[in-house]
């Protein structure tokens, strides 16, 4: 088991956001974390990265308990995060954004350029001057430059033009084919379900359903995802 999240709870101040999330992910697996808006998907991701420290429960990554670990140490264990909202470093160039994150491993600047040729074309441009889609590519590229064992994508295609979304999904499929473990949150079920090996559904901050994508029937989708 690469990632094992057991019964975690988390709070924003006095307001409880997670009430018992369970989630597991094996090496090479793609897990879709699903649920309607406000059900705790992003908070779960933040808890895994210790950006919102969980109060109870346990999180283990590669057999190491990460619950009390600072964020940078969790990242160094091999968790690459693509946060919601394309959060690059706006005043750094594309190249600087990528090299700042770089750690030794198979992911290099050349490989990122092959995955996203647009980034190579814009490598000396400031991140803030990129289009939304290019910034998202940069956010994925930056996370890959950390050479993660697990890539976490939080709403990576939200608000992007359809053509750019296709580029991002193509990249995700390519990463899956390379055997990278991925935890992905996305609302585009038509793209998400074919790429996922397993789905975890959250409702009101709790895991309520886990199973294979084909088992997530229209009824269940209607009940938990409101689609």
């Amino acid at each position, binding site marked *: 088991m690469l990632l094992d999240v057991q019964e975690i709870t988390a709070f924003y101040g006095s307001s409880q956001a997670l009430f018992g999330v369970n989630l597991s992910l094996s090496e090479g697996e793609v897990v879709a974390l699903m649920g309607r808006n406000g059900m705790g998907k992003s908070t779960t991701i933040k808890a895994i*990265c210790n*950006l919102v420290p969980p109060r109870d429960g346990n999180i283990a990554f590669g057999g190491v308990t990460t619950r009390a670990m*600072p*964020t*940078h140490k969790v990242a160094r264990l091999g968790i*690459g995060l693509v*946060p919601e909202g394309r959060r690059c*470093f706006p005043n750094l160039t594309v190249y600087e954004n990528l090299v*700042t994150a*770089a750690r030794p491993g198979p992911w290099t600047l050349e490989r990122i350029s092959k995955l996203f040729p647009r980034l190579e074309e814009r490598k000396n441009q400031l991140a803030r001057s990129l289009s939304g889609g290019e910034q998202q590519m940069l956010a994925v590229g930056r996370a890959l430059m950390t050479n993660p064992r697990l890539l976490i994508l939080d709403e990576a295609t939200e608000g992007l033009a359809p053509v750019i979304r296709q580029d991002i999904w193509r990249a995700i499929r390519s990463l899956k084919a390379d055997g990278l473990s991925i935890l992905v949150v996305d609302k585009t079920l038509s793209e998400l379900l074919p790429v996922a090996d397993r789905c975890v559904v959250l409702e009101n901050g709790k895991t309520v359903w886990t199973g294979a994508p084909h088992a997530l029937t229209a009824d269940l989708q209607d009940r938990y995802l409101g689609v």
Partner: protein
Amino acid sequence: MNREVSINAAMALALLAVPIIALQIGQTFTITLATRIAILALAATGLNLALGLGGLVSFGHAAFFGIGGYAAGILSAHALSGEPMMFGFEGSQSMPVIWLVAAVLAGLIGLGIGVVSLRTSGVYFIMITLAFAQMIFYFAISWPAYGGEDGLSIAVRNGFPGLNTMRPMEFFLVAYGLLMLTLGLFSLIRSSRFGAALQAVRQNDVRVASIGIKPFPIRLTAFVLSAMITALAGALYADLNRFVSPSMFSWHMSGELIVLIILGGTGRLFGPLAGAALYVILEFVLGGMTERWQFFLGLILLAVVLFARGGVMGLLAGKARHG
């Protein structure tokens, strides 16, 4: 060559050309003004590393400026008197030795101050750095062995191998050379991976942590380097005036260094030089007209903050790439 590089080159050449011309026409005082500009620019370049790249608004950099000054004064005083210091060290009148001592001492004290102050941010960071500088200021005042409140004179300007530093032009060349070397180092740091990480930390330290970089050591390294550079300037400043006093540690000095950076352009490579040049020229020109020249400097600073946030470099070379 882009516009900023051309302007930087022009400024570097102008700073060199003015004293050369002044020497030809016998205007020694102008050489001293240029030396003062170079030294203040060096001090501000040190602070620019922490403030401009790292966003660390240190209001206590006078501590490092003063440490550099007192290193020059104390080492020189012992070398001249022959009275040994600690561990039998007899002092030194060699600038490279003094610079080394100043930089190491400021680096160590900067490390101590940084370890404590960098755990805070915003106004708390400003206040803690100010508090440390004031502690050192009051220590210097109450240290009679080295002049206390009256300060310490440097009877003979410290020497640099192969040069006669008593000649204003040769001393200027020492200050100018050190400034250019430091600007080169600043440029290297800014374009390095460490420099990118430092600027990323300024933009968002949580995001930096999420890519596996601990922000604290990045900030601390920048703070210590910044302290060491400012101390070198302090040592040169003491040699320029051939005098050190606790005023080098005062909060006015810390404020002056911040003003130089804001006037010149925060985070810009040649911002400190532009700021120092403007400041010294204003001090000279306005100071000749009125004793209250700082009132007018205040007005100019207000105008810069309100209408030209990029400072002189922003006006001349456009918006900062890393603004």
